[in-house]
């Protein structure tokens, strides 16, 4: 228990720092100076010092935002357990609970967005939902197949590729930032949140990025036989590197049309998953 709490605390401290690093790297690509590495922390501290504005809908709405963040923290800790087990059958239970929890967190975000009277919030909720149904089933299938012993090289490679793509999507970067797009779209699941509640939502956003980078690290280390501390150290080392790689991809990619991004993703993941199931069935 104490160990899990320590892991959660470390992740909560690190995720905004990595996000600050992301902003610095993005600025470097733009040939700008960019904000300090601790900028995301400055933003969160500022949000927690601002006025508490309870959205139209009541205080249950605030509870949902906090619950969503706690669900993501738990999911992130479980992922560390999966990582320390070295991605094998011993971690099947933790991986299954992780998948359920990420689904619950997304559902909570959708519910609190669509229950608002603000149409832009409802729009963001539907976009979040469309991303959820086009990425999370594939994420679940590939992770479970990798864990339950897709030993044949072709199956393993395809499962790892599906996991890498699905993990990038849940990180919410361009072009899959359609649910909580940057200012020019003026819509999103967090549009009605203010002050400390927005601070909690910001923590959820960076935690999702952390989970995404850890999942990619798991996919990349699925060929190694590392377990325990060695496996954890590899994941801890790879996470910021993958985070920066995600940043570079996100900065270089342009934002595409909302429906096109989702349709392209769904088609790609559907084809890859079909290939995965066939290769798994054939044992190649």
């Amino acid at each position, binding site marked *: 228990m104490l160990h899990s709490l320590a892991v959660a605390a470390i992740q909560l401290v690190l995720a905004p720092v990595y996000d600050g690093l992301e902003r610095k790297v993005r600025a470097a690509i733009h040939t700008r100076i960019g904000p300090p590495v601790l900028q995301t922390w400055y933003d969160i501290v500022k949000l927690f010092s*601002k006025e508490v504005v309870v959205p139209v809908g009541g205080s249950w709405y605030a509870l949902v935002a906090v619950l969503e963040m706690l669900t993501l923290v738990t999911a992130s800790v479980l992922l560390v357990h999966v990582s320390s087990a070295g991605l094998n059958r011993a971690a099947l239970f933790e991986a299954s609970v992780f998948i359920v929890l990420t689904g619950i967190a997304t559902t909570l975000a959708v519910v609190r967005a669509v229950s608002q009277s603000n149409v832009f919030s409802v729009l963001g909720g539907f976009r979040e939902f469309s991303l959820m149904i086009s990425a999370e089933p594939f994420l679940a299938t590939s992770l479970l197949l990798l864990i339950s012993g897709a030993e044949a090289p072709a199956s393993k490679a395809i499962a790892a590729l599906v996991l890498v793509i699905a993990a990038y999507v849940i990180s919410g970067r361009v072009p899959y930032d359609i649910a909580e797009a940057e200012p020019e779209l003026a819509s999103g699941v967090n549009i009605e949140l*203010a002050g400390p509640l927005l601070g909690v939502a910001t923590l959820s956003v960076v935690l999702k990025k952390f989970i995404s980078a850890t999942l990619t690290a798991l996919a990349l280390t699925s060929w190694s036989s590392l377990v325990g501390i060695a496996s954890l150290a590899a994941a801890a080392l790879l996470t910021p590197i993958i985070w920066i790689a995600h940043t570079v991809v996100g900065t270089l990619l342009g934002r595409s049309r909302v429906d096109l991004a989702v349709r392209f993703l769904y088609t790609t993941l559907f084809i890859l998953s079909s290939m995965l199931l066939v290769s798994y069935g054939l044992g190649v």
Partner: protein
Amino acid sequence: MSSVNLARALRAIKRSVWVYHLNSGSCNACDIEILDALTPYFDVERFGIKLVGSPRHADLILFTGPVTRESLPKVVRAIRAMPRPRLILVLGSCGVSGGIWWDTYSTIGGFKKLEEVLRENGVEVDRVVYVPGCPVRPEAIIYGILLLLGVVEQKVKKVEVVASES
């Protein structure tokens, strides 16, 4: 009654300023200069400045225009939607005083008049800085934000001179 420690919040905002662009009926030249100030060329993110799409997320409103009668209720709603502390940077001659529209039938004549309407509606604003110009320059917008946050000193001060008989 606000639930916020204003001094602590203003200290935190110094390092992280989220701005919301509010046009109350300007000719759009000031708005183009705002967009210019927010481009990578000026790199305002190095001061922690970020553009947001909702007044709920904003710490500071970049306010332009002489406040047309049509936009007045929406402007009041947008400013009320901001969590405190509410900071406003009034931009351009129109925003500052109504500019060339100061006495036309369809505008109320700039932010000074709007302040009265806000007071009547119980909407408190914590800090205001005026940046004149027609249109206002991007450098002046950035300087105005830093002035509002207390990062730089005000260069020009109002001095009242009383002429004596002798």
